[in-house]
């Protein structure tokens, strides 16, 4: 009898669930997520994406002036893309490291959003796979 007698609870629960559903739909469909891609998957994406790759070759240029230029390649393939980046460069950034950076592909060059470069940590923390 008590279950039948608590409409308040039901109403609150349902309304919150409804609000939640709307929020989730709104954010996940109308532009919540950013695709996370490797260099070989970039072709055809013109919007903002999150690029994951290994730093290949020597980085040149100045991240606080004209921009830092470097190549990112796939984890398990040789496909690579040139990247130009401005802003803070993480301590762990160097050749061979896996990094993530947001930006857009423009005329074959990945133009990064400033200050979005992060490194994925090296695996001294755990045994190699």
């Amino acid at each position: 009898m008590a279950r039948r007698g608590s409409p308040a609870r039901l109403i609150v629960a349902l309304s919150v669930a409804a609000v939640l559903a709307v929020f989730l739909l709104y954010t996940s469909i109308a532009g919540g997520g950013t695709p996370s891609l490797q260099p070989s998957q970039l072709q055809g994406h013109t919007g903002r994406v999150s690029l994951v790759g290994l730093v290949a070759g020597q980085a040149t240029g100045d991240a606080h002036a004209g921009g830092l230029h470097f190549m990112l390649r796939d984890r398990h393939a040789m496909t690579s893309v040139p990247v130009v980046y401005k802003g803070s460069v993480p301590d762990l950034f160097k050749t061979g490291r896996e990094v993530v950076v947001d930006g857009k592909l423009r005329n074959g060059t990945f133009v990064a959003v400033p200050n979005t470069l992060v490194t994925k940590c090296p695996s001294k923390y755990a045994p190699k796979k």
Partner: protein
Amino acid sequence: MPDLGRAALVTAFLLLVYASVAGTFAAWHSRRRLAQSAQNALIAAFGATAVAAAVLLAALARHDLSFTYVAQHTSRELPLGYTLTAFWGGQEGSLLLWLLVLGGYSVAAVLTARRVGREVLAWVVPVLGLVGTFFALLLVFVASPFATQPAPADGAGLNPSLQNPYMAVHPPMLYLGYVGLTVPFAFAMGALLARRTDERWIVATRRWTLAAWAFLGVGQLLGAHWAYVEIGWGGYYAWDPVENAALMPWLAATAYLHSVMIQEKRGMLKVWNVLLVTLAFCLSIFGTFLTRSGIIQSIHSFTQSSIGPWFLGFICFITAASLALIFLRLPLLRAKTRLESLVSREATFLYNNLLLVALALTILWGVVYPLLSEAVTGEASTVSKPYYNFFLHSFGLPLLLLMGIGPLIAWRRASLRALGRTFLWPTAAAVVAGIALLAAGAGSSRVGVIAYTFSVFVLASIVLEFARGTSARKALGGVGWGGAFASLIARNRRRYGGYVVHAAVVLFAIGVAGSSAYQTVREARLHPGDSMTVARNRLVFRGFESSTQPNHRAIRANIDVYRGGEYLGRYRPGKNQYFAEDQVSNEVSIRHDLLTGADLFLIADQVNSDGSVDLKALQKPLVNLIWFAGFIFVGGSLIALWPDAREERRLAERYEGATMRA
């Protein structure tokens, strides 16, 4: 030595299996002596785990590199302190710590919670045993900390970012929190299995839940502070999956701590409470899984390993088994009373619960979003800061407001007239504060103004509660204001401890809003003699200075800070170049202003060969309130946790009959 460790783990595993199997049989058939024997096995398993932990600790201390674990996580030059904390620097050690802490909690909870009744306790033992069995199984068969190898000349060393004093406290605190949530879960399942669905299991585990929750909270704050002073990007929380991993169970446990009060007082929300405690426990296992499996790509979770599928299986099993059990016991979980009004203490607790759970679940959604989107569309998508901030604002701000409303509203049913009287002063204070803030130019951030207005409202209502209580107690006579205040808290530790924690949360919110919504960031390339200005501070670059230390070369930018002509001192942000690890680390310099709670945060972002520096300066108002709130939080939790002889007597009387019968 490694043999002793392995043997100890196998012993612990077998004892835990026995505790689970024999315990289940004993509870099922009400075999009292067998139940006692299962309980003894649980206690003995803790002893065996402690032996294994001691073996690993000894191996670390002796730099015994024939232990693969020691070789992989330490090196000969590593200072003794960090060598010992490497215990939880890697996967196998972390799992061992989990099992050890679980054993400690199990023994303590089983031995102190006799009031719950013998039947429930008989079921609690196998539940705890089962959780322990899982971790012991991993340690024995999948990820043994006692694997050996021919000793190499030197170990691989500990990641420099883990060589930090916080390493000694932050992970153990989190583990005490994560693992501690097993206790209320086991007792809830025990109560359901024994068909004892009154509130005794809640009363019996109240302190354990509170302690675990407090540890989890403090652990996260320590981690935030670690990130703030060491990582050097000017923030303290980045919505990283591993950070979220600890936040989610904490939010669920917060909801649970509130909703159990409704069950204790009014006998309502029984189903909800067992669901919440299950959610909190599953999220804590999920958190361990996230941290340890590296399934979600994150800057933290770089431990890709073989234990992932095991964890996933265990989480599925726990979730399915507990939901099935709750479903089977639904008829016993009917509430005795009902919600009478949407404007009552119960109702505000319910709103608070829904918001907390909604926040936890939206964070969970964000965390698993890359996996789900990859499974559905074949392409991983990630959600980032805007997503989390959106939900933090939409659910967090109402929560803040509720914290001021809940404690002042009457149980059962509150009249609107009474509400008007009660909230007159807090509302007035909030409105005045809001106008003052807008006048002072805080309108630049709408969220900031709302957060501050709500904060003033909550603080005013907390002060009002303390003032009312104190004056009522003083009116009883015989004591002064101080005495009345002290005895008020001493006699209602739970309630006033709770208010103190609320005050801490408000301070925390003020600090977060101040340091994020109102921070000023300036970047500039400075040559020696150049200056820049950030929020009334003039920073003058005086050139570099470098020195060579045993394991690194340190380069520092000398920055003189002036405010309105007054010299405030020299600050030295810079970088360290570690030789052995071939790694650079940012060394920030922070000027704390204890009067205003603001920090001036200096980062030497880039050291240029022409002698110039790219300096990043952040002025973060009120950020120190966040850390200050941590101390208040601990204080409030301790007040609520402190043993209370009067309460014990009252409970003893209340459950005397029941315990005798059982």
